């Protein structure tokens, strides 16, 4: 793959596009998120169970999108994108998780208990 390539649409990034993957990514995403909607509408379980279930389904949906729509894998053309994402995810989890934990603790200890119950 050189800079003087006359057919840029033959670049691996472009050639990786596939109808089957786009359509299955579309259908799978809608099916999984539809399942989450049904679970919530049916109040299928306690709050903790439901939140855990829809969180798990959202992660599954995102993984499906990354593989089927973004075409992320460990091939030569994609491995750096995949690796940088894998290094990025712990940062996101730490920033969201730790801040939520800190504020939850803060509310529990500082505010009026009656005001903090969701």
């Amino acid at each position, binding site marked *: 793959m050189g*800079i003087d390539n006359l057919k840029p649409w033959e*670049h691996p990034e*472009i050639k990786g596009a596939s109808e089957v993957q786009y359509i299955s990514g579309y259908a799978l995403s809608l099916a999984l998120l539809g399942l*989450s909607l049904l679970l919530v509408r049916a109040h299928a379980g306690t709050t903790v169970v439901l939140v855990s279930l829809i969180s798990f389904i959202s992660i599954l949906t995102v993984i499906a*999108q*990354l593989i089927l729509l973004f075409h992320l894998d460990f091939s030569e053309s994609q491995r750096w994108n995949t690796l*940088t994402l894998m290094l990025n995810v712990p940062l996101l989890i730490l920033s969201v998780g730790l801040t939520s934990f800190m504020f939850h603790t803060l509310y529990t200890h500082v505010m009026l208990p009656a005001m903090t119950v969701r």
Partner: protein
Amino acid sequence: MSTTSGHGQGSDPSKAVLWAESDHEHDIISTRLLGFWLYMLSDSLIFAALFTAYEVLTYNTSIAGGPTPAEVASPIRAYIETIVLLTSVLAFGLSMIALKRDRPRMVMAWMAVSALIGIGFLGMEWTELAGLAARGSTPQRSGYLSIFFTLIAVHGIHIAIGLLWMGVMLAQVARSGLTALVVYRMANLKIFWLYQALIWTFVFTFVYLRGSV
């Protein structure tokens, strides 16, 4: 990515070629795409901050006697928005298929379809926020409403930028055809547009569904 090989040099490290002396193997499309991908990962930190703020502003103290998440965020409406946005993403995917086949007119046609559906999605986000404000649920009403409006509006701004970018690419494909510059910009736009659906998955789950649990 460019590859430098020392593979043919056996296992003797003193003879290994560690990098190419010239950049004639340098793959400009992959390098630029990686750069844009890193930018999108940094953009994800903005959404991480917003989702964190959403999480800490859904306590009763932040709802402040105003409308609750269950009253503000309708999961059914959000699922319809999900269908609309993912359909736009699918249309853009079909545009990339046409790009792979070197068919610029089909690239433009599917991108226009994607943009039109995207405009529909943006309209749904706008009417939702405008409807809330008309009922007195403005961002100033409570901390919860502030972050709800902010999160949806930031996502909407991303969508608006994507739509503007599609307009620019429609003009560039029409004017220049599928040149290397146009192709890598299309690949960047694909990442940007698909990323909006990725973020929406979390918005749908942790804003709209979570509010009704």
